[in-house]
């Protein structure tokens, strides 16, 4: 076999690649565009998850938007406040701090303490299950526990527990809100990270109905509203709602709640049992 059959193609293709490479290398120097150094700096401190939680196409898009003034330095939901401060420092801004928000599944009615209308054997997706009479649970506002949020979470922060309920790991949650948008039941709520007292029910039906279908639902007794020393609990659509601005995490409501659906600081939870 003639060796030139191998050598000619290798040399010609390799030569072409070399020439193109050289041209591109020269061009990249010659046509270099001055990119604002701040964009590069901001991009460097961003987490790089490209989750889109900020509303811009990826971290690059957000960095561009910050420099062009379209986004604020604390617009990245994933970043800690230190990183937001770094971004602000790069931009020369005054630091605007905002508290980190994390996702929380406001339903504790798992398979052992809530009623079911029927057994669901379909596709393992909350969205699919929701199409069939709003899911198998009697409570039409509760977590279906089929893990649509688990699949969408880019940070592996959501698990389905043994009670068939989605549980968010506050350590891993970055607050990108993707699960909030994905959940067909809208049972995931963004809550400030330091907030310890949380009302774990999403059912807006009257107390009588809630009592029949779930042992851990808000029955609308308003005991917590009266008990709260800071007037931080309001009532809306048969459901208690905490004003996180006013709440001091004192835990009085946790102790008073007859159905034990309000979560509080660990020491109070231990006391209540």
């Amino acid at each position, binding site marked *: 076999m003639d060796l030139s059959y191998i050598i000619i*193609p290798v040399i*010609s*293709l390799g030569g*072409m690649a070399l020439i*193109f*490479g050289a041209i591109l290398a020269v061009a990249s120097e010659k*046509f270099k*565009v001055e990119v604002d150094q701040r964009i590069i700096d901001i991009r460097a401190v961003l987490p790089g998850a490209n989750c889109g939680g900020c509303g811009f196409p990826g971290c690059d898009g957000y960095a561009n938007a910050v420099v062009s003034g379209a986004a604020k330095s604390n617009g990245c939901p994933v970043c800690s406040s230190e990183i937001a401060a770094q971004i602000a420092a790069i931009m020369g801004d005054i630091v605007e701090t905002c508290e980190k928000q994390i996702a929380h599944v406001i339903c504790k009615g798992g398979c052992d303490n809530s009623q079911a209308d029927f057994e669901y054997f379909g596709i393992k997706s909350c969205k699919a299950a929701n199409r069939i009479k709003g899911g198998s649970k009697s409570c039409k506002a509760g977590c279906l526990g089929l893990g649509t949020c688990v699949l969408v979470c880019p940070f592996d922060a959501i698990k389905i527990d043994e009670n068939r309920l989605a549980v968010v790991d506050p350590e891993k949650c970055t607050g990108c809100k993707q699960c909030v948008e994905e959940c067909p039941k809208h049972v995931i709520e963004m809550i400030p990270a330091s907030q310890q007292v949380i009302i774990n029910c999403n059912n807006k039906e009257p107390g009588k109905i809630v009592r029949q279908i779930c042992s851990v639902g808000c029955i609308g007794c308003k005991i917590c509203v009266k008990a709260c020393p800071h007037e931080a609990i309001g009532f809306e659509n048969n459901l208690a709602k905490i004003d996180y601005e006013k709440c001091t995490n004192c835990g009085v409501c946790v102790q008073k709640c007859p159905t034990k659906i309000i979560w509080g600081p660990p020491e109070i939870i231990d006391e209540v049992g």
Partner: protein
Amino acid sequence: MNTTSLFVIFISGILVNNFVMSRFLGICPFVGVSKQVETAIGMGMAVTFVITLASILTYLVHYLLLVPLEIEYLQTIAFILVIAALVQFVEMVIQKSSPSLYKALGVYLPLITTNCAVLGVTIINIQESYNLIQTIVNGLSGALGFAFAIFLFAGIRERLELSNIPSVFKGFPIALITASLMSIAFLGFVGLV
């Protein structure tokens, strides 16, 4: 070669042998970037630009390099090399010389590297043994045909967004049905040249 044959190539490229509708090349950007008329025009412009340039360059590479060395069988890989390098180069030049055009074309420019319509045009040019002028005309008309098709499709999709469609067909399914109907409509041009 006369102007009539060039005109025939031109019409054939835009209507009769439309890249998307008759040859089914470049379907990915056709479906992917056709949600809004504005972005569709951007994509069409970028493709037109790149295909015309790529036609000329690959023609030169083929007849000045591959044919004399008798390595025509390396056509595909050589053309891909040319197109990829060209797109990169064009991107750099545009970014420097015309930031506004760069912004308008946006992410579509680098996407064209992997657009099979570009490779398709260049290979068809060689297969049909066109000369340089015919190659340019074929490249330009094929690319304009692509731009035309994606523009029409985006227009229809924009209207579909607002119309009352059975929910099972919403979004992608109806887009595919629309695309196939458009393809059938383009069949009407067969026999024109």
